[in-house]
């Protein structure tokens, strides 16, 4: 694992801006940044060298995604309801989605013409139940294009949990497919223009964000482990596990480290002489990757098994700095100035 993805501790060392349990999606809408946390939308304002979160709205269901662009457009995905577009007057225009689409709309991005590309992770489970979709080899993910008038066009179907999307501005878009551990680029309107930018990633990729330099940022919310891959092959064991055991106790990826005595453990994660090794096969991990326009990784930030900044689900560039959310620990992280030269890592 030498090279760009060589593990480091940069997510652990990053400034912890604020703590907000259930913090999830970050977006920058013009001069304001927003983040979601449960049913609430927060605006983030720079104040005295730090950031302050103010409640900017509450919704009847959990917020499953946020989308925004530099023109100030903002859209919010609300579980079991649909999409709400912010109008310039400060009210919300609602676009309802069919129930199987509204449950698990996990990421979205505006195209330059103002329509919204939405990732439906799965049409079978709710967003909070993502682990079940992984364990049943979910292939019902969908990407939609929704315009402000409420017209919905299905762009791609049969995906293995698309969890992040970025519109590229040239009629193409990049999305991450979590259960296939890959990053794919497609063109709107020409179904055969497909290329795999990254494949066989060592972690389950989550949301994406464009970078000012023309590339994009990729987050990963949990590591792949030999044991998880094996359980995914072992139909008999997996079926019985799903049928008889609560998802929080399943063998599989997680957003945060084991905190309860009844959660599964792998042999290498046993605390030895008071220490959990950084290389331990943990269920959770923190990973942010900066890629160029062709998807080549340029730089990476990690939080390893002995750290806590796990379950990174979102990253943005905002006013020259890079912010990321660790959903596992409920922390907003400041990774430093964007576009900084790649520093030499130990």
């Amino acid at each position: 694992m030498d090279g760009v993805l060589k593990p480091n501790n940069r997510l652990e060392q990053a400034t912890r801006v604020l703590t907000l349990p259930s913090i999830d999606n970050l977006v920058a809408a013009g001069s304001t940044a927003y983040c979601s946390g449960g049913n609430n939308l927060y605006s983030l304002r720079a104040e005295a060298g730090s950031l302050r979160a103010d409640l900017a709205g509450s919704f009847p269901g959990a917020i499953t995604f946020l989308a925004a662009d530099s023109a100030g457009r903002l859209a919010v995905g609300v579980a079991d309801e649909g999409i709400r577009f912010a109008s310039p007057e400060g009210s919300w225009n609602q676009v309802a989605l069919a129930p199987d689409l509204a449950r698990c709309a996990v990421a979205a991005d505006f195209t330059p013409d103002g329509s919204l590309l939405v990732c439906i992770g799965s049409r079978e489970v709710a967003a909070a139940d993502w682990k079940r979709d992984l364990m049943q080899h979910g292939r019902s993910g969908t990407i939609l294009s929704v315009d402000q008038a409420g017209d919905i066009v299905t762009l791609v179907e049969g995906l293995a949990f698309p969890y992040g999307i970025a519109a590229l501005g040239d009629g193409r878009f990049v999305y991450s497919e979590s259960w296939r551990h890959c990053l794919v680029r497609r063109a709107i309107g020409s179904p055969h223009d497909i290329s795999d930018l990254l494949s066989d990633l060592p972690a389950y990729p989550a949301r994406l964000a464009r970078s000012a330099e023309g590339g994009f940022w990729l987050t990963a919310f949990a590591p792949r482990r030999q044991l998880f891959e094996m359980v995914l092959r072992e139909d008999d064991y997996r079926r019985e596990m799903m049928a008889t055991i609560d998802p929080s106790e399943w063998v599989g990826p997680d957003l945060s480290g084991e905190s309860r005595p009844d959660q599964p453990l792998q042999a290498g994660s046993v605390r030895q002489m008071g220490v959990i090794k950084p290389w331990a096969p943990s269920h959770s991990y923190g990973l942010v990757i900066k890629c160029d326009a062709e998807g080549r990784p340029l730089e990476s930030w990690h939080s390893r098994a002995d750290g806590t900044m796990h379950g990174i689900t979102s990253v943005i560039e905002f006013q020259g700095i890079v912010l990321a959310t660790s959903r596992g620990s409920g922390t907003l992280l400041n990774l430093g100035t964007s576009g900084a030269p790649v520093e030499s890592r130990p």
Partner: protein
Amino acid sequence: MAFSETVTRLRYRVFSDRMVGELLSKSWIDSAIPASVLLIVVVAASLIIPDFLSMGTLGDLGRQVAEFGLLGIGLTIVLMSGGIDLSIGSMFALCVLAALVCMNVLGLPIGVALLATLATGIACGLLNGVLIGYLRLRAFITTLVTLVIYRALYDILFPRLASAIVGNTPDSPLWDAIGFGNFYGMPISFVIFVVLALSLHICLSRLRPGWRLRAVGGARRSAHNAGINVKLTVCLAYVASGVLTAIAAFLFSARLGSTGADTGIGVEISVLTAVVLGGVSLGGGRGSVGNAIIGAVLVLILTNSLIRLAMPGSVNQLILGLVLILAVLFDAKWVKNRDKVLNKLYVSPTYLLLPARAKTEPDPYALNDRLGATELIGLGEVEGPEDVILDRHDHLYTGTRHGTIERFLAPDYKSRETFATIGGHPLGLTFDRAGNLLTCVGGMGVYQVSPEGKASKVTDETNRSLLSIIDDSRLRLPDDLDIAPDGRIFFSEATIRYGMSEWATDALEGRGNGRLICHDPRTGVTRTILRGLIFPNGITICRDGQSLLFAETWACRINRYWFDGPRKGQREVFLDNLPGYPDNINRGSNGSYWIAILGMRTKTFDLAMRKPAFRRRMARQIASDEWLFPNINRGCVLHVSAEGAILDVLWDQEGANHPSITSTCEHKGYLYLGGVSNNRIGRVKLAGSDPNWTAQADYWGVS
């Protein structure tokens, strides 16, 4: 229980996969494959060739085996030393010449002729040995050169002596008997061979010269470091080869009574084929007399059969060469992959059902943080304090993985000294009536340390079970012990299949691999009293003096066993279906017991324990660090009454100080905690317990 699960359970009870791995781990498995090939060849030859098994053929074969087999054993000794001897063919020819000249030409007595032949062999072997052993020349090139030199000598001498050899016949009945005589139907030369082979086998496999030879061939530098005279050993291997060649030549001369220009030509290749085919490794260090004989018989049957089938000689050689290449190829692959195959096959999980735990209200096992703020003793100074114990002067003792017993001095336990150095990781600790500290040492046995700190062995073996494939007489992982009022020591051996470093792999098997053993110091006898226990761990003698409690870790239960009294020999479950894996058990104040819980059950691991095939695939497909494991990053301590009622449960909620607790010790109102993979000892004040209670007083009366 579903029908399929019943089938699984029965399948693993009746057909255990354990045996396959255990068979592969035996050292004689190296010979098993050549032996079965030999069997197949014998059956095939007897089917194809008429009269193959007749007495005449067998007698003839016996004489050939005697000569060829001795050459094979000679080469085997050289190969085991890590070298090779290509000169045996020429050496053989020279020895034949020496024997025949002595017998036929000079008419010397047979004893003198034998000595002269042996002297020829020794001289030739010694030249090889000195060049290779002392002057460090390459064995291959050296013996290739001596092959040419000895052959040249033979070619110079033979024409001058040929007519004299043919012209005379020796007058020696013994000579004729060796050549043609039978002893109870067996050729005499074959009898000589059998006697020689047996004694060489004992020497090579059971005696010091053989072990040294193996050590030198297996790892020259390590052998040197261990104090073995490598040069002498290598030199003597070539001398031994010369001696055996000389004996073979003597038998050959007695049988044929003459020699030709081509005697011994190509012998090195057929002998090499034989020994490699028999399973002797070209890499050195591996081989036996048995391997050499199997190979020799194989090659003889093969060549004889080819001759009987009227194959031309060149085709014969071609086939032999091909067989040699195949055997070398197999040898290389086998030596390289044997351990890999063994690693994949040795772990053999079995079916283990742990019933689901019903949630009760209030949950006696509810998380608390009573051990969260323990006072830490020896943080970073002790590694692996599996058990902790205090003596009459309140000093604290614990074992470490560095092989020592450390003592922390009362009253503040800030200063530490090494009480005794044992060499293995001391696990369970207990004091006897006289104040000696007894300990179970992983990989070693039960040891005793006097109050002055002098360590001595108590026992390191028990009786071997009749039907066990692996040798279970030696103690591999004695775990915890306690002493009965009459002085008998009862101790548990957690598993007989794994050593100290791999104890966790036993969790994956879930089989009853452990046992309960009793050592009686009055007679010095150690006997296994219970077998087939699922990782028996903590032991404590009950206050009735007739029974003991022992934990079966992976089965999450505690049993009571009566070793004396009216219920002697009976066993019953004391506590069942625990939420975690019990480790050491110790007495507490007010007639209670403390049970350390090593780690907690998880539903996913419980499910895996019901699916042996899943666990076996896990062991084979993924790295051991990635294996699913019980959650031993959280442990707790149970306080139970003498009847088994849960009095109290103490947790370290974060698991930062005491992630897995392997032992507890109550002493004067405090509870001391140890952990086998921890680097600290914990001490916590017990509210409401007797501040004067000590285990010594409870066991032996006055403190």
